[in-house]
C-alpha cells in the first residue's frame, strides 16, 4: 500500500510564552515537536503498511528546520520523508497550505504513484483549525473521512475502505472508496517506538526537499501570504477584567471560609438558592 502522512512541525505550545510587556510571542528556546495529532495518523499508516506491505511517506511544508520532524517520523518507522520549503510559503493560511501540500502530494505521486490513503492529523495545536485535511481532500478529489476512530476494513486492490467515524452524537460506520483522506481521532492508537534499525536508518537518511518551482507551482500568488484570503489584523493578549475576583478571606479557618464563600455566592446569585432547592434531592 502507498500511504502518505502529512505532518507539521509545531512549537510545543505548552511552552510558548507571551512577552509581558510587548505582548509578542517569545519563541526563544521553545522546542518544536511533531504536531501530536499527526502521530495518530502516522501510527495508523505504519500499521497498514505492516499488514499490506508497501511504503509510508511523510510529507511536510515548512521551514528547512522541519526536516528534523520528518527525520523523527522516519525514526518511528516511516520509509521516506519529503519537505516542501520555500520562502514564498511564509504566512500561509489553511487555504494556501492545502494548496501547497496538494501540489507536493501530486509531485510525490508522479514518482511513486497515487497514494491509497493520505493521512492528516485531526488538527494542529498551533493553527487548531482542522481545515487543511479537508482542503487537501477537496483539491485532490479524495474521499474525505475525518475524525476516524478506527479503520474496520480496507482493500487496496478493490479500492474500498470501511471506517468508524466519530460524529456529534454517535459513531458513523462509513464505507468509501480509495484514494481517501483520513484524519485520525486522537487516542485511537499510540505511536510505536522505532527499533534500533529504524532510528539508525532515520539518522542516515536524507530528507528530500522541494521548493515551489520543484513541485510545479508557477503561480506564486496562490502561495504564502499572497495566497491566503484570511488576514490577521491584530494579535493581543486576553484582557484582564478590570475588576479582579473578590477574594473571600480564608484567614479564620476552613469552615468559616466555606460559609463565607456560600454567603458570597448566594448574595450575588440569589436565584441560585431556589434553583438549588428545587434541584436538590435525596438528602
Amino acid at each position, binding site marked *: 500500500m502507498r500511504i502518505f502522512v502529512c505532518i507539521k512541525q509545531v512549537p510545543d*505550545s505548552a511552552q*510558548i*510564552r*507571551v512577552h509581558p510587556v510587548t505582548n509578542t*510571542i517569545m519563541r526563544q528556546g521553545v522546542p518544536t515537536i511533531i504536531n501530536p495529532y499527526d502521530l495518530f495518523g502516522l501510527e495508523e499508516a505504519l500499521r497498514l503498511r505492516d499488514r499490506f506491505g508497501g511504503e509510508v511517506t511523510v510529507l511536510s511544508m515548512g521551514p528547512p528546520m522541519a526536516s528534523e520532524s520528518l527525520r523523527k517520523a522516519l525514526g518511528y518507522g516511516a520509509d521516506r520523508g519529503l519537505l516542501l520549503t520555500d520562502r514564498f510559503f511564509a504566512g500561509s493560511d489553511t*487555504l494556501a497550505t492545502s494548496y501547497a501540500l496538494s501540489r507536493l502530494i501530486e509531485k510525490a505521486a508522479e514518482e511513486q504513484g497515487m497514494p491509497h490513503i493520505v493521512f492528516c492529523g485531526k488538527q494542529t*495545536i*498551533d493553527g*487548531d*483549525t*482542522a*481545515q487543511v485535511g*479537508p*482542503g487537501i481532500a*477537496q483539491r485532490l478529489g479524495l474521499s*474525505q*473521512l*475525518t*475524525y476516524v476512530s478506527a479503520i474496520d476494513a480496507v482493500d487496496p486492490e478493490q479500492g474500498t475502505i470501511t471506517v468508524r467515524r466519530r460524529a*456529534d*452524537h454517535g*459513531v*458513523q*460506520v*462509513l*464505507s*468509501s472508496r480509495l484514494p481517501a483522506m483520513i484524519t485520525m481521532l486522537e487516542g485511537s492508537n499510540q505511536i510505536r517506538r522505532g527499533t534500533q534499525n529504524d532510528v539508525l536508518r532515520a539518522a542516515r537518511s536524507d530528507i528530500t526537499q522541494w521548493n515551489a518551482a520543484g513541485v510545479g507551482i508557477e503561480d506564486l*500568488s496562490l502561495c504564502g*501570504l*499572497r*495566497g*491566503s*484570503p*484570511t*488576514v*490577521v489584523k491584530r*494579535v*493581543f*493578549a486576553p484582557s484582564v*477584567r478590570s475588576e*479582579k*475576583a473578590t*477574594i*473571600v478571606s*480564608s484567614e479564620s479557618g*476552613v469552615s468559616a471560609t*466555606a*460559609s463565607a*464563600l*456560600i454567603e*458570597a455566592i448566594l448574595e*450575588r*446569585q440569589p436565584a*441560585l438558592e431556589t*434553583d*438549588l*432547592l428545587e*434541584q*436538590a434531592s435525596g*438528602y
Partner: protein
Amino acid sequence: MTTSSPQAAGQRAGMKKELPEHFRSYKHVWVFIEFEHGRIHPVSLELLGEGRKLADKLGVELAGVLLGSGADSLDDATRNCFAYGADVVYRVEHPVLAQYRNQPYTKVMTELVEKFQPEIMLLGATVLGRDLAGSVATTLKTGLTADCTELAIDDERSLAATRPTFGGSLLCTIHTLNYRPQMATVRPRVMAMPRPEEGREGRVVVYTPELEEERIITKVLDFLPDDAAEASGLAFADIVVAGGMGLRSEENIQLVRQLASVLGGDWGGSRPLVQKGWIAADRQIGQTGKTIRPKLYIAAGISGAIQHRVGVEGADMIVAINTDPNAPIFDFAHLGVVSDAVALLPVLTEAFRQRLLVNRMAG
C-alpha cells in the same frame, strides 16, 4: 473546482480592502443549520442569535440554511429558524441528504453560495461543521476562521473574527477582506442562546439540487448512537464544579464530584487531568474540551490558562479556589478564595449540604 480564482496576480492578497467587483453583490448573513436525527444542533440556534446581531449591524438579512431529506420533517426546523431570528430559510430537501456526508453537503452548500451570494457564513465548530466548512471554503477559495470566540463587524463592514492562537496564549482577530463569503466556525456554547420568539415568520426559499446516490462514494452503513447517560450533560449543566492539577491526586477528584452532586450539577476538569488519565476526555473543559455556560462554575486548583478560560468565560459566575493569589484565574473569576482546595472542598460540600437541608426544612 467550481469558482475561478478571483485573485489578481501579483497583488498582495488581503492586506488592503479592495473587494473585487464580482464580490460586491455578495450580501446577507448565513447560518448553516446543523440538522441531524430530526433535530437542530443547539449551536446553530446560538449562531442565529449571533448572526442576527451581525445582520442588524450590516443592515442585511439573516438566513438559515437547512439541508435534509424529504422524509425528515423540515417544517419544525424551519419554524425554529424564524423563531430564533432568521429572516429567510434556504431549504434543501433531497433523499441523498438524509444523513450528513461531506460530498453532497459540500456540493449543495457551494452551489447555494454561488447562486445566492452571502457575505458571511457561520457554521458550528462541531464535528460536522468542521468537516463541512473546510471543504466548502476550499472549493470556494475563500477564507475560513475556525473556532471563533467573538464576532464583530468593523467600520469597513468587514467581519472581525477573534479566536485563540498559538495554542491559546494569545487571541487574534482575523479578517477575510478580498473574498466572499467570509466564513467562520464557532464552538457550541460560546455564544449565548437567544430567546426564541414564537410565531415569528420569514421567507422560505426552496432549492432543489441535482444529486444522485450512485455518484456519492461514501455510504453510511450504520450509526451507533452514544450512550445518552454519558457526560454530554456537562455542556448544559447549570452548575459545574471542576478540578485541576491543584487537586494533586486522582483520589481527590471525588471531592469535586461530591460537591457537584450536592449542588445537583455536573463536574469536569482541566486538560492535564485528562492527560494523566484521572478523568475521561469528555470531562475536559476548555478550548479543546467542552465549552460551558453554567450559572455557577467552581474551579478548584485550576490555574486559569487561556485555553481553560475560553471554555468557561460564558459562566454567569466563576468561583476560583487556588492557593496562589497570583493565579491567572483570579483575573477573570468573580469570587476567589486563596486556599487549599483539598481542604476546603469537603467542608464546602458539607456546608452546602447543611444549608440546603436547613432551608428545605424551613421551606
